[in-house]
């Protein structure tokens, strides 16, 4: 892992040419975390990419309002958060409804003030992969069918040969187990 190329406190050079280059550098570092944030609440792939694009557009436009003494990642996700809520308002009950407090909690989970975000995300993914290796075969099958094969709802239940209720419970349990496992591994590495 390469070290973060810039310190955020000296990143925002307001000259036009440098400003854009720095903006792109910051987006490359914080964009993946932003996309995870947006994807967590916007399930439609096209809408997710649209939100990502909109967030970057708004961030570029408002770059002058960014306080360089603060972290760029939360600022960027804050813009994304507002766009998510605006979209939610626009769609009303036809869209997925996520409470703003959930977005705040999610931001708390994603914020990694002491680390480069890209590095933090790779550590999280490495921990998750290790945790997946340790799953019992039955739970691994649930995860594989849901996430590797993309099955959902009744199709997933049929694939597993279980009832809907049992499938829901299994997913609930395996995600809780993976959450505990990942956070334990990250804590052991001093990441959390």
């Amino acid at each position, binding site marked *: 892992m390469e070290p973060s190329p810039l310190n955020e406190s000296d990143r925002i050079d307001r000259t036009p040419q440098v400003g854009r280059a720095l903006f792109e550098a910051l987006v490359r570092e914080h*964009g993946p975390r932003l996309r995870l944030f947006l994807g967590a609440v916007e399930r439609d792939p096209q809408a997710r990419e649209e939100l990502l694009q909109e967030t970057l*557009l708004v961030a570029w*436009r408002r770059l002058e309002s960014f306080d360089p003494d603060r972290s760029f990642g939360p600022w960027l996700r804050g813009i994304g958060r507002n766009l998510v809520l*605006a979209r939610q308002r626009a*769609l009303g009950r036809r869209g997925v409804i996520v409470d703003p407090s959930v977005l705040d909690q999610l931001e708390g989970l994603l914020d990694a003030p002491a680390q480069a975000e890209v590095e933090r995300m790779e550590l999280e993914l490495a921990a998750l992969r290790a945790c997946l290796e340790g799953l019992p075969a039955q739970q691994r099958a649930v995860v594989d069918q849901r996430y590797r094969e993309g099955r959902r709802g009744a199709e997933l239940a049929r694939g597993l040969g279980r009832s809907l209720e049992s499938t829901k419970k299994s997913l609930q349990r395996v995600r809780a187990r993976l959450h505990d496992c990942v956070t334990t591994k990250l804590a052991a590495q001093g990441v959390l």
Partner: protein
Amino acid sequence: MDDRDHDGERRTPLDLDGFTIEAEVSNARVQAEVLWVDGLLERALGVIEDDRRAVEVALQRLRFGDGATGTKAPGQRRWGLVASAAGLLVAVGLGLLILVGPGASSAQAALTRALERAERSEARAFAAVLRRAGSGEVVRRAELFTGGADAFAIKVAAPFGGYLWAGADQDGAWFVPALEALPMIETDQRSRLLERLEEHGASLPYVDVLTLLRACSEDFELSLDRSERCLSGVRRSSAPPGPDRFELQLDSQGELFTARLERDVDSSAGAWVFELERLDVAFDPALVERASHHAPGRRVLRR
């Protein structure tokens, strides 16, 4: 269905797997943890496009003005270049990587900005005109005053003389009939204002800017012209009834300047055109407060 858990905390529908995971959304923290693990699983098992690649594509679409045109700093550049750059990228073969048309994305961003501006704007006044086709054209004129946040008041010429007033602020909505003998009406539901206006023969499709802009963000194919000041929308064929098309003119700050919404066919009252134009006039901000319209001694009904 009760959407609160045993702690009284709000629960929200969470559909990650094709059915609502009710048991997992007992509180905001747990729901956020589920979303976080779900996002990591999608990445670890390769069902989602690589984040870095997706971010790179998004950045590509922001790369405008390279070479001859040069780059302008934020705040100095013009948004027209964004659309131009996106079109150029499509031309050089990146179209397959781009999931949403640049015009639609920029238009959506412009509409979002207009909404944000409207939510934050200081006092603004608009002239509104509704032209309704039918047995004879009906023209209804109104003046709309906004007071920042979502407070507003609208003054509508009543069919039989005088003016009706309606408005809302954070405490609720209110309606003042033209005839002084009739009571002022207060309600918690803004949507009731449209009903009250209709009851008094002065129906309008919209009575405030925020509702109008939010309506424009639903069910329309959006486009933004090269000046990035003219935003238009055409209602999708599958959308529920509403205006068939609209055109918004934005000022240099992205704030609404004029609006024109058109409905071609309305089974009950024929086609209509609703226009809004921002006025360069000063007015007393208290105009958007209900107290300004509550004459001493006038009865108040709550509905």
